Each structure stands twice: as C-alpha cells, then as structure tokens.
C-alpha cells in the first residue's frame, strides 16, 4: 500500500497515474544523502556497540554479587519508554545539563553554559548514545533468556578444565552457540535504530534530520502533495534498513570465517583480564547513565530557580506538576485505555495460541519470523501503508485503529515473554488434572492459568510498557487526534520547557513502572499462603 503512492497513485489526492515525480522531488531534497547516511550508520554503529557491551559483560560475568546487581538493575531499564530515556539523556549531557553542572566550575571552569551543540549534534552521536542505552538492556535480556537453554556453566567449566580463562572460555564455547539464538533480536535492533523517530526527534541531528524524521515531517506537511514524497521516502527507508541488515549479515559471514582459526588456535588466556574489566565497566556505565538520566528528570521536574553551575536547584517546587497535570488527563486516559485494551487483546490471542499448541502437541514451529516481522520492518515503512490502506477503505483515524496498530508490536513482545514459561511448565500438572477427571477447560482455568499467573502478569506488564512507549503508530493511525503521554512529551521536545518536559517524561516512565510493580506484587499477595508459588514467582 505504501508502494502505490510512492509512484504517484493515490486517488484520494487526485493521483491516478503512475509516475516518478515523487522520487524526483525526493532526490532533489537538500541533505537527503546525509539523512540516508545518518540513518544507515547510526543503526549499524549503535547495534555494534550495544552487542559489544552485552557480549563483553556476559563473558566477564562470574556470577558475583556485582554482576547480579548490575543484571537486576538493567532489566527495569527496558521498561522505560524510549522518549523518556532520550529526554533524560538530553538533560544529562546538554551544555546546561546535569553533567556540566556537576563538573562546573571546578573541572571545566565554565561559569555559564558553553555554546556547544551536544544534543542534536550533526553526527548523531547523542542519538546513538540514547539508542545504546535502550538497546543494551533489550539485548541483555534476550541473551539471558536464550542462555537458559544452553547450559553455559557446563561449557565454561569444561573449557576451564582444559586451561581456558573463564571469559575466553565463554567467548569460544558459549557465544558461538548463543549468537544464532539472538540473531532475530539483533536484526530487530538494527531495523529499529535505522528508522527510529521519537528518539531522533529528541536527540538526533536537525539539519538535516535522519531519514525517518524527514519522512514524518513530509507526511504531516499541510501541503498534502508532500504525501507522495513521504511515501517514496518510506520505500527508501525500507531500502536503507535492508541495506543495513545486509551489511550486518555480510559482517556476520566475515566474522564467522575469520574467527574459525581463533576459536581453535588454543589461545587460552590472552585478553581475559581486559575483557573481564571492560565488560563490567561498560555495562555499569550504561546502567549508571540511565539511572542518572532518570534522576535528572526527577530533579528537573521539581526544580524551582536553578542557577547554572549549581549542582542542585536553589528551590524546589511542585508548580510544574500542578500546572501540567490537569492538561494531561485526556492523554493519560488515552494511554491507559489503549495500552490496557491492546494488552488484553494480545494476552487473549497469545494464550489461546499457546494453549492450542500445548493441547495438540504442536512443536514450537518457526512462527518466530512471522512474529518478528513487525519488529524487523521499519515502522515508518509499513505504518504508512496501513494509514493509506485505512484511508482508502474509509476508516478514519481513531482509537480502535491505534489499538490495532499497537497490537502489531504488543503481540510479538507478549508472545516472546510468555511462550518460554508456557512451554517450560511441567506437562504433568495438566495431565494430573485431566486424569482426575477435570475437563480441559477446567484444567486450563484452575491449574495452568494460576500456575502461570506470575509470568502472565509480567508478560502483560511488558506489553503495556511497549504500548505506552509507542510513538509513531499512535501518531500516524490516530491522525494526530489521539494524544497520549508519549506523543505529548515528544511534541514538546522542540518547545524546550525543560521542567514541563521532565514532568511528562517522568509520567511516561512511571506508568510502565507501576505495571511491573503490580506484576510483582499481585502474585505475592494472591499466593501469600503458598510457599512454592512465591518461590516460583
């Protein structure tokens, strides 16, 4: 559906012939090449950095107290919406941000904010940093889930008994088995990073912006004929993402060839100390940055008068909260109603699918690719198609359409977080129930569902967090008329009232947090008198 308007066909706007005008207009745009390069490189570089950090940490991980603490701190980071992380980071590294304040004037000697373009820098470094902050927890959690089925301890122990240092043992014996399992999440990260919109709006370069941001600008242009160009841009975006994926794939092949020798060259110790140190240091930095970003948001949201080099605000006030809360009631209700309906529908679909598979002994077939498709195709590209499709059959932008679009992203995440727990549940539980004469529906409601309550609630919290964080689907399919906390916050990015932005970004981060807390708390309350259920949760 996005292809037709790209070649000039969109009857609603009077385009009923095929031609290449949109493409000519697109190529004529100043800075287009730069936009393309920005999207392509920021996607590849951030993925590489994030994967590097995760692999190094996992290789260095010895199961010490520090490692466990870092791991535990990283997981909640995944729940924080992209936009909130981006704002937090912006407030941290901006010339008048927290870092500059903490270091000034002592280290830097600055008495006033320096005239530097740190956020929105032309090379997209700030954008890449923000993306890395979000991708590291994602890749780490995906890796940890995959590692559970690989028995890494056994492999490492065996290699160590042959004289390999632990981290080298991990890299040589565990990682080659792990990578194929996390390949799809890695591709999803590349696709996301090459086409991200909300983070790029907040942290990315402006003149020119990344390709995806340009496309959105054209799409929302009052001059409707720009839509043809936007459609052509969306097709181009698909090409850029595919090019990045292809580059990565070629890189994979090359690394695989080149590492064959290294894997069996017998080197056992070289570099292990550096890996052990680097892995921990890098992941700690990521965690610390993200935490400080959140702390910064909290500080700005209650800051009164705050002179530049002071480390803390001179006065504290709740004014900003009071000022903004009345106006965010509608976005708040929208966010929650959309998130909860998408989660409920998704939970129903996913549980029905898993239950069907369990009852009919269906193997975990390769539905994974299909599920990952919405995560691997750039949002800009196929959401455009959806908008055009909806318009051509006369469905106006509305709540239901936004929920439907969110489902595309919520269902895969919910499935991914629940399917493992579902499959791992001992089949004998249900067999016992059936052999006691309980019909399948009763075995499902009274045995399987209660036993899976904790993972089900966690999966729902994940999907709620995913829905809350969605920017582009909400904007495009809501036609800009379904404001949520996320769209409101991103819309304020250019406005620049830091304190109000901080309040919105905190609210945005708070909602998923509440979801996760409930997912932890409810099983504990429900199973307060059942020891094994608490242990399992």
């Amino acid at each position: 559906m996005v292809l037709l308007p790209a070649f000039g066909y969109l009857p609603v706007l009077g385009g009923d012939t095929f031609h290449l005008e949109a493409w000519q207009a697109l190529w004529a745009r100043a800075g287009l090449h730069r936009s393309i390069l920005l999207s392509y490189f920021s996607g590849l570089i951030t993925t590489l950095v994030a994967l590097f950090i995760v692999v190094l940490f996992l290789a260095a991980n010895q199961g010490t107290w520090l490692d466990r603490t870092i791991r535990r701190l990283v997981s909640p980071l995944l729940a924080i919406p992209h936009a909130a992380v981006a704002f937090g980071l912006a407030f941290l590294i901006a010339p008048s941000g927290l870092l500059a304040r903490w270091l000034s004037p002592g280290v830097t000697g600055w008495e006033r904010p320096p005239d530097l373009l740190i956020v929105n820098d032309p090379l997209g470094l700030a954008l890449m940093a923000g993306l890395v902050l979000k991708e590291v927890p994602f890749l780490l959690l995906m890796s940890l889930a995959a590692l559970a089925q690989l028995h890494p301890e056994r492999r490492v122990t065996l290699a160590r008994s042959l004289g390999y240092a632990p981290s080298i043992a991990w890299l040589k014996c565990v990682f080659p088995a792990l990578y194929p399992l996390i390949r799809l999440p890695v591709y999803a990260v590349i696709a996301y990073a090459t086409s991200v919109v909300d983070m790029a709006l907040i942290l990315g370069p402006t003149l020119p912006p990344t390709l995806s941001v340009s496309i959105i600008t054209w799409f929302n242009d009052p001059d409707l004929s720009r839509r043809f160009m936007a459609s052509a841009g969306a097709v181009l975006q698909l090409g850029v993402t595919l090019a990045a994926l292809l580059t990565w794939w070629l890189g994979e092949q090359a690394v695989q060839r080149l590492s064959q020798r290294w894997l069996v060259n017998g080197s056992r110790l070289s570099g292990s100390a550096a890996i052990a140190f680097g892995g921990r240091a890098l992941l700690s930095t990521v965690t610390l940055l993200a935490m400080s970003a959140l702390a910064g948001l909290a500080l700005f949201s209650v800051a009164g008068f705050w002179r530049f080099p002071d480390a803390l605000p001179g006065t504290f006030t709740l004014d900003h909260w009071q000022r903004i809360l009345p106006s965010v009631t509608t976005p708040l209700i929208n966010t929650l109603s959309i998130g909860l309906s998408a989660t409920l529908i998704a939970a129903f679909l996913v549980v029905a699918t898993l239950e069907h598979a369990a009852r009919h002994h269906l193997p975990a077939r390769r539905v994974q690719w299909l599920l990952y498709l919405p995560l691997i195709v750039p949002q800009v590209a196929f959401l455009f198609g959806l908008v055009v499709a909806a318009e051509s059959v006369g469905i106006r932008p509305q709540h239901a359409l936004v929920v439907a679009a969110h489902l595309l992203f919520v269902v895969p995440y919910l499935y991914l977080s629940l399917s493992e727990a579902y499959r791992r549940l001992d089949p004998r539980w249900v067999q016992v129930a059936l052999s006691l004469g309980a019909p399948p529906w009763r075995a499902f409601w009274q045995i399987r569902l209660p036993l899976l309550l904790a993972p089900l609630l966690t999966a729902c919290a994940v999907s709620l967090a995913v829905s809350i964080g969605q920017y582009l689907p909400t904007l495009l399919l809501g036609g800009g008329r379904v404001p949520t906390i996320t769209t409101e916050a991103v819309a304020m990015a250019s406005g620049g009232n830091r304190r109000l932005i901080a309040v919105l970004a905190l609210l945005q981060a708070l909602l998923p947090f509440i979801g996760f807390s409930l997912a932890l708390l409810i099983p504990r309350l429900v199973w307060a008198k059942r020891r094994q259920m608490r242990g399992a949760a």
Partner: protein
Amino acid sequence: MTPIPQILHIKQMKITLEGQTLLAINQHIAPGEVLTVMGPSGSGKSTLLAYLAGFLSPAFQAQGELYLGDKRLDTLPAEQRGIGLLFQDPMLFPHLSVAGNCRFGLPRRTQNKTERITKALEQVGLAGFEARDPATLSGGQQARVALMRLLLSQPQAVLLDEPFSKLDTALRQEMRTLVFGQLREAGLPTLLVTHDEADAAAAGGPIIALG
C-alpha cells in the same frame, strides 16, 4: 455408589514411531491386581503410560484397543477414561491447599465433600491437615495426600509411574504397603512402571519386561 470393579484389557496394542515398533503388549489386569512393567529407561515405559492415560503425542502411531470391562477407552479423551495417575513426584497443585487438592479430584456431584476429605485424610494419618499449604508438608505426607486425591477422584484403573523412586528407603516400604493396600481394597486394576525389583515384589502381581 462406587462402581463395580472391572477388568482392564490392553488388546493387541502396538505403538510405532516412524514405522519402528516401540512396544507391543496384549494383557489384561484383573480388579485389585497390579501388573508390573519393568525395563530400562528408553524402553518405552513412559510411552506406554502416555498411551493408556490418553496423552500420547501425535508423533506416535498406536494400534489396538483399550477396554475397561465392556467400555472402550482408547477413543475417549484423557479426562473421560477414569484412569488415575501417580507420578514419582506427588504433583500436589502448589496454589491449592491440601483440602483444595483433594476437592479438585472429587467428582462434581459428590455429596458431603468436606466430610469425605476429612475422612480420607484421617485414613492416612493426616487429620487436621485440610488448610495446610502442600509446600509445608514432608515428602511422605505429600505422597499420601497425592494418593488420597487419586482415590477420591474415584478412578476405575490406576497407573503408577515409579511412584516410590524419590522417597528415602525407610519411607519407601511404608508407602508401598499403603499404596498397594489401598488400591487392592478399592479393587482397582493397576499398572506399575518401575525399574526397582523391590517395587515389583511388593506389588505381588504378574511382571512383564520391556526392551
């Protein structure tokens, strides 16, 4: 109230996987009798249990018929066969109390459910355990609750899947006596799968070897 005990017939049963015959059995088990099936792991013991209980994966092909008296069972879904199961783990539902576990097994229209549960628990020395969390019970106590849950569900035949292998030696003999005694008293045809000679001896019935 209790149905008249019936003979369990395994008629010309043959289970194949991708054309390979895994096991073939033609046996009948009289009420109150325990047929012991012995064999090393991988000899198809669990496949046999899955077939009888109705959980056989569609990857396997099964031929033959399963009858309880005149009633054909192999065409029925698991929950309508009336075949009870005891595993090596007690498998007490961790989210239900001891009484809740027993109640789950009781047929829908049973009269005086609470009294029956109380009586059943008393019978195995667990009087007053109704409200307890199964996780707080010892291994032997859990095994006894699992047995009573099974009996309360009024099965017409029972399958035992190495039910004593996880108990410590002292407890094992006691549980063997209890389980076989109860099953015999209820007049249930029983199939025991084990690799422990002592189980077979305690069962006191015919023995067949697989593999």
